[in-house]
């Protein structure tokens, strides 16, 4: 029997995105002097990696029809918390990291319980956290960076290994894990089922609440991880880092083809989206465009991505409409 080779809509989106990515690469490469340099690629990869680490779990959150907009402040607070633990309480680095990651899990659990038991939309809970976490980080540090001195930690996690930023290696590993989860595991299937038709999933016995809580917990944990990795990069706990990061993360996921309405999305799409957003941000700087205008461009991109998504992907590829 011959098998029909079918190109799925999700693949079409990824192919389109890959072409867009290469085009943007060439445009920036040939229109500026310093874009096509190793140094610059390392810089693009580095910033893409921090975003990617949260974007992969965020893809799951969006697929289940939820959202987490507290990423930036969660990253900042996690870094500040980490440094407070090692500096003020003199915890060792591993133990402090362990506590901060556990705290991240707890934060996601809180968002998930608010959603599933109290019926508070994740947008609202994470909006509240967005304000509270940034505010508390600024308050407790009095807006000043809390410096750390541990060189091995800074050089390893903030630096490069085998020709790539360490954080890029971590991001690639995490990408592989999420790609694997989404394609080959029960959890992955359940996440798509919850996004596709939550009512159906629930009626045949799937624990929809548990799945949502798990995806939110993983996402907050990765925000916490990025917080720690940022500390290594900037050698301090800094209450102002990660500003607007939730935007880059969600933009990357959506540009990568995940529908805001849930049900649809792939990890490869998100990886391409992450690289796309990082490349645009970087290229615009090379064009000498004001960083503030950079934000305008990114705003336009996410808007266009949603328009394309809702025309190409959502109508043909989405799950059932009812909640």
């Amino acid at each position, binding site marked *: 029997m011959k098998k029909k080779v079918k190109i799925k809509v999700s693949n079409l989106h990824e192919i389109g995105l890959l072409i867009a990515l290469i085009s943007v690469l060439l445009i920036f490469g040939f229109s500026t002097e310093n874009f096509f340099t190793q140094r610059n690629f390392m810089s693009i990869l580095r910033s893409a990696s921090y975003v990617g680490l949260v974007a992969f779990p965020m893809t799951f959150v969006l697929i289940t029809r939820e959202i987490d907009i507290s990423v930036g402040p969660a990253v900042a607070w996690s870094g500040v918390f980490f440094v407070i633990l090692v500096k003020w309480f003199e915890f060792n680095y591993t133990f402090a990291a362990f506590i901060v990651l556990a705290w991240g899990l707890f934060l996601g659990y809180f968002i998930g319980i608010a959603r599933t038991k109290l019926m508070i939309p994740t947008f609202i809970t994470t909006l509240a956290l967005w304000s509270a976490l940034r505010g508390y980080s600024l308050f407790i540090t009095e807006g000043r960076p809390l410096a750390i001195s541990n060189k091995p930690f800074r050089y390893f996690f903030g630096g490069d290994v085998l020709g790539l930023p360490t954080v890029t290696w971590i991001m690639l590993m995490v990408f592989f894990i999420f790609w694997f989860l989404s394609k*080959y*595991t*029960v959890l992955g*299937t*359940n996440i*798509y*089922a919850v*996004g*596709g*038709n939550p*009512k*159906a*999933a*629930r*009626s*045949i*016995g*799937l624990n929809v609440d548990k799945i949502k809580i798990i995806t939110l917990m993983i996402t907050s944990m990765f925000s916490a991880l990025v917080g720690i990795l940022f500390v290594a990069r900037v050698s301090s706990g800094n209450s102002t880092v990660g500003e607007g990061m939730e935007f880059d993360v969600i933009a990357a996921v959506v540009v990568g083809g995940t529908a805001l309405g849930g*049900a*649809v999305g792939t990890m490869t799409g998100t990886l391409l989206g992450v690289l796309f957003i990082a490349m645009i941000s970087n290229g615009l700087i090379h064009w000498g465009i004001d960083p503030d205008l950079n934000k305008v461009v990114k705003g336009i991109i996410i808007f266009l991505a949603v328009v394309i998504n809702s025309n190409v992907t959502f109508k043909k*590829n*989405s*799950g*059932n409409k009812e909640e």
Partner: protein
Amino acid sequence: MSILKLENISKSFGAVQALDGVNLSLDAGEVLGLMGDNGAGKSTLVKIIAGNFKQSSGSISFENQNVEFLKPMDARNKGIEVVYQDLALCDNLTAASNIFLTREITKSFGFIPILNFSKMFQRAKDIFKELKSETLPEEEVRMMSGGQRQAVAIGRTKLSQAKVVLLDEPTAAISVRQVAEVLELIKQLKKQGVAVLIISHRMPDVFAVSDRIAVLRRGKLVANKKANESSPEEVTALITGAIESA
């Protein structure tokens, strides 16, 4: 001997009294046709048996034991399978993934359990063959016709050795030929000793397979009698209220 017994089941949604003191029992190997107008409470009754809703009052016993189904898994674990009126399918998953949802077959990859696609596809293929449906296990459900979707929903009930199968309007959206397949399936289940409850608006279908007919009107059970002692005319009159009860 009855396998499933409902005693004095009532259910209200706020001010709406969906079910009012329903007594009903189901024997192994028996097919019960449940009829009633839209909004009579048929789906609500099915969802209470399946653990989707908790009854407001009354009790359910299964194999002579008092049971309380707090969630759908409780009922499924006892061997109660449901084909829901809206089919409860996830459009973004393949037919096989829908059938195996919550019952995935896994194999181990090192120490990690991963989905065993080839086994699930093969089993789904066998099920579709049994159902005489041309549904492809690896195709996403959103592309499928009404009949194929129906086959996927019914396919779920064939995964495990069910003791009770509840079918809520299983023939509402499918072609004549497919209706015949569903009725054939019900007869097979009966032969295997499975208790079947079928809800349908199609009088001839119900009379073709049912041993007993029950009628709900505005949440009350107004008839519960042998099919060969009733007639489509009588049932119609019971549904509309032209006859009070029988």
